[in-house]
């Protein structure tokens, strides 16, 4: 809409519609008006003070909205950051799964093995922490099944060379003997 000027007064596309200017003292008689009427309207006394007040109000509104928008942008950034952190926590969360049986392998489980399964990138890693034995798998179930296989394979391999073990594997074998027995 085209601005209409009269002396120092300029109206921009608000005529004929209710507006916030109408409620301001000094501007009441200007609205609602048509562009034609404006040409013949004499501004009320004290319109300059009213205009200042309106501009002040407008500035306050703009300031408040800008502050609100900035707060929203900051909050949005924080929410994204928290979501990312939450994903990390979910991915790193460990699940403890007791291994109760290693059937059909010819071994007897003397006590349940507490396996810890954690996500690692695309894969999962299942660990028997006491014996420091670990296995990977694409799913938790696969990682757990692989851990059982590694435990049995390692037990057999370590038993076969029990007299040639360094401190680490010796300790691993000692732990395994507390959990497994050949059936």
């Amino acid at each position, binding site marked *: 809409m085209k601005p209409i000027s009269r002396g120092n007064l300029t109206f921009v596309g608000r005529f004929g519609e209710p507006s916030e200017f109408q409620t301001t003292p000094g501007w009441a008689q200007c609205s609602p008006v048509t562009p034609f009427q404006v040409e013949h309207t004499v501004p009320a006394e004290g319109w300059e003070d009213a205009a200042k007040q309106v501009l002040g109000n407008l500035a306050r509104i703009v300031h408040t909205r800008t502050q609100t928008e900035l707060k929203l942008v900051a909050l949005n950034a924080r929410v994204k950051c928290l979501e990312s952190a939450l994903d990390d926590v979910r991915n790193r969360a460990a699940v403890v799964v007791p291994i109760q049986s290693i059937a059909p392998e010819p071994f007897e489980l003397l006590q349940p093995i507490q396996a810890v399964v954690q996500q*690692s990138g*695309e894969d999962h890693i299942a660990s028997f922490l006491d014996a420091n034995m670990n*296995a990977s798998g694409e799913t938790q179930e696969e990682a757990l099944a*692989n851990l059982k*296989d590694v435990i049995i394979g*390692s037990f057999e*391999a*370590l038993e076969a060379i029990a007299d*040639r073990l*360094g401190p680490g594997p010796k300790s691993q074998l000692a732990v395994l003997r507390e959990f497994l027995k050949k059936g």
Partner: protein
Amino acid sequence: MRIITKELALKIVKKLEAQVVSRDKKPHDIAMVFHNGRCIAQFGLRRGSEKDLGHDHISRDLHLGPHKARLLAQCPLTRDQ
């Protein structure tokens, strides 16, 4: 993303001159690392033809961080060097 693939795991086996205990019809072979005639570490090697089969567990078996385990596989030096 996998840090240690089967390809890198085999490089670690070669680098450490580990002896691989083959296990027929089982999902894993066992690699054993010897030093002065004693076994000082062992880890499972997944059987399968896929080169990118995940072996991220090896870093834990070798008491290394994942990054160091990868560097070990990629290091051009031999064990003797």
